[in-house]
């Protein structure tokens, strides 16, 4: 199976949250990034995500390919949501599917850290007092 990656408008739904299943892969490790209602001790009412789309699409696909270092047969699904989201909505979905649990767990953690380090996506958070700011690094 091929990796599936992409950036889509809006929060991620059930379709993206369902991992692809294949009989040869006995382990799927998944990660969901959920919009949090607080940051730095303050209430957060919404996040707004934007990206450098052509570069982000390439980088996300490349990161998914690179995760095969954990297992040449690994299959990755990686979706990032864009635009405005409120707390409780899902902004990131990762699935790493492998024959065995070790590579699946290792790959999903690695994918998350690489995405946070390299994917050209930025979020602006709005606090409950109405002020807002770009988050730089996370």
């Amino acid at each position, binding site marked *: 199976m091929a990796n599936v990656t992409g950036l889509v408008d809006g929060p991620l739904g059930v379709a993206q949250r369902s991992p692809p299943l294949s009989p040869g892969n006995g382990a799927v490790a998944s990660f969901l990034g959920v919009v949090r209602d607080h940051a730095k001790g303050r209430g957060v009412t919404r996040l707004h995500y*934007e990206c450098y789309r052509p*570069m982000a699409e390439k980088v996300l696909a490349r990161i998914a390919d690179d995760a095969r270092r954990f297992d040449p047969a690994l299959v990755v699904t990686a979706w990032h949501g864009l635009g405005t989201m409120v707390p409780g909505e899902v902004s990131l979905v990762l699935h790493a599917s492998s024959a065995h649990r070790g590579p699946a767990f290792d790959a999903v953690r690695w994918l*998350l850290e690489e995405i*946070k380090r390299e994917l050209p*996506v*930025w979020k602006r958070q709005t606090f409950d007092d109405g002020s807002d700011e770009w*988050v730089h690094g996370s």
Partner: protein
Amino acid sequence: MSVLYFAATRDLAGVAEERLDLPAELDHVELRARLAAAHPRLAALLPTCRFAVDEEIVPPGAMRLRDGSCLALIPPVSGG
């Protein structure tokens, strides 16, 4: 050459995309100086930014730009 600004760099530059005349070869120090001259409000953020040419991050040091290249400022990312 077109220059793209995202997130905080766009807010500070006041523009999402513009054309700037830049030399075909320059290093990061010179590039930052030119961008700061064009947009003084960007100056404080520039040391934290990386640069992408035609959608690929350029390592620190000298970079080569050709006519038609697209340069993007990449402030620290915050996806996830």
